[in-house]
């Protein structure tokens, strides 16, 4: 193992998970560098949850190896969890414990626990400290989970869809908190999410899982540089076949005109085409949308 690999916060190699005859995850390989924000995207059932469970040592992969900070996560889970903060997809704290009791419980387990930071965060989120966790709103549960995950000043933060079910304000608060944490401490973050717009200004690198396979593992900048979105008006005589030299990833044409996402070349030489900025959501839909829409 090289020293660089040893220092990698996340190193997944050929990770596979199988449930009976179903291959939930197929040879997923990716790394997350220190200080990086890695967003793992995918539709429901794409294998994200299985991958996160393997990453946290909850589940043993049927193939491959998952390492955090150079240590095998299955065999060294306890030691590694001192350096990892987790926000689960479904808030999983005991429903009858109050926030105060949860803070006391978690605080006693970590030598690096930042009590002042946790109290400040919970105050900022306006969380009632003596209400049982099960009686908090969905958004408040997520905020408590985030405050607890940041409590031990983790070197790696794993967020499994932290904004699921949150309203716009609560979502913004979660992202602001994350940005603050990243700005202050440069924590490495691995997050799964369906909120593609929310992470566009946050993620450094994107992984896209589809049907258990990691289709994309690239920096957001690279992805946007490699793909161009173009459209044409109905009055323009653009034949989608004219786009073939640009290796379209996805295209759609109709009575209202057409649009396409191209993967190579400079389409400005084609008359009638207009270039547009490409959003992560458009790219995601083009990559993992229904098969009939995917051109390649």
């Amino acid at each position, binding site marked *: 193992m090289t020293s660089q690999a040893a220092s990698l916060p996340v190193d997944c190699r050929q990770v596979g998970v199988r449930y009976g005859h179903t291959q939930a995850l197929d040879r997923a390989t990716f790394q997350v560098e220190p200080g990086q924000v890695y967003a793992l995207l995918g539709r429901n059932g794409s294998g994200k949850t299985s991958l996160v*469970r393997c990453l*946290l*040592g*909850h*589940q*043993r992969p049927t193939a491959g190896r998952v390492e955090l900070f150079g240590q095998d996560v299955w065999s060294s*889970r*306890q*030691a590694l*969890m*001192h350096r*990892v903060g*987790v926000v*689960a997809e*479904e808030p*999983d*704290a*005991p*429903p*009858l*414990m109050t926030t105060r*009791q949860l803070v006391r*419980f*978690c605080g*006693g*387990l*970590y030598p690096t626990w930042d009590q002042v930071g946790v109290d400040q965060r919970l105050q900022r989120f306006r969380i009632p400290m003596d209400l*049982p966790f099960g009686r908090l709103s969905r958004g408040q549960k997520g905020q408590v989970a985030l405050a607890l995950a940041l409590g031990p000043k983790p070197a790696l933060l794993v967020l499994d869809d932290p904004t699921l079910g949150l309203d716009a304000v609560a979502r913004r608060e979660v992202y602001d908190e994350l940005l603050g944490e990243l700005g202050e401490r440069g924590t490495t973050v691995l997050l799964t999410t369906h909120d593609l717009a929310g992470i566009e200004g946050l993620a450094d690198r994107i992984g896209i899982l589809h049907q258990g396979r990691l289709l994309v593992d690239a920096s957001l900048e690279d992805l946007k540089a490699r793909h161009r979105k173009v459209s044409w008006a109905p009055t323009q005589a653009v034949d989608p076949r004219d786009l073939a030299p640009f290796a379209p990833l996805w295209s759609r044409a109709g009575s209202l005109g057409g649009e396409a996402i191209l993967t190579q070349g400079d389409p400005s030489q084609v008359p009638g085409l207009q270039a547009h900025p490409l959003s992560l959501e458009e790219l995601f839909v083009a990559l993992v949308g229904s098969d009939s829409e995917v051109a390649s």
Partner: protein
Amino acid sequence: MSILAVTRREWTGRRNVLLLALGIGVIQLLGLYFDPNPVTTQDKASFMGVFSGTMLAWVIALLFGATMVSRDLEERRFGFLLNQPLHPAQIFLGKVMAGLGLALVAGLLASLPSVLLSGLWRQLGLKDVGSILGVGLAGSLVLLLFFHAVSIQVRSRSLWLLLDLAAWAGFFLGVRWLSLRLIDTGAFPDMVHLWGGLLVGVTLGLGIAGYLQVAQGRADLQRGHHWVSVTMALTLGLVLLAGWADVAWVLKHRPPAAKAPPARVQIR
């Protein structure tokens, strides 16, 4: 300290059980107070206090064992503990200690009012108290571990259940066969020893199976069931083998005078 943190976490929200136990204790006390025949009060206190306290402790241990891990797994809450820097042994022992502690305190709360106020405590020596507590706690431990294993086996809904059923059926048939061999020779004390030994062995196996379910199964209920099934099948087989060796030894080394009379002089 981490074990105690897990124990405290398990106690949170289950304190109502203690109120229930106290209520049972008070009801018994009222029963004794309004007793029309006070001569038998101490006997009733003995039965109602000690018996019902022990029964309550065992019921609580049973229910706690049946839910302590499997319900967390089914409701996807077990990840909360796995996401903390806790060793599987700390998680499992913390939960077992919480169950035993809850059973013990509830049993005491249910029995103490009638035992203390009826004056029964004056007749109880330290040895009696030790025996009552020992039986109560040992029974609670067996029930807690057994129903933990059963709850994992039932809730995982996997085919490993067939191995469980086969192992337990084989075990009970084996115990019956060994017991009959001892009964045929009149070796009743040895049968009690055999059963005691088997119970200790099975309890040890249940403890190991419970730990492995947490350590190797983690958030995967079916994988945990696999470990419980394999461990219990091995344990039951080994315990039965030890029991067979014990019975063989007893039958071989029993003094001739203690052996059963020959068939021709047996009273028909």
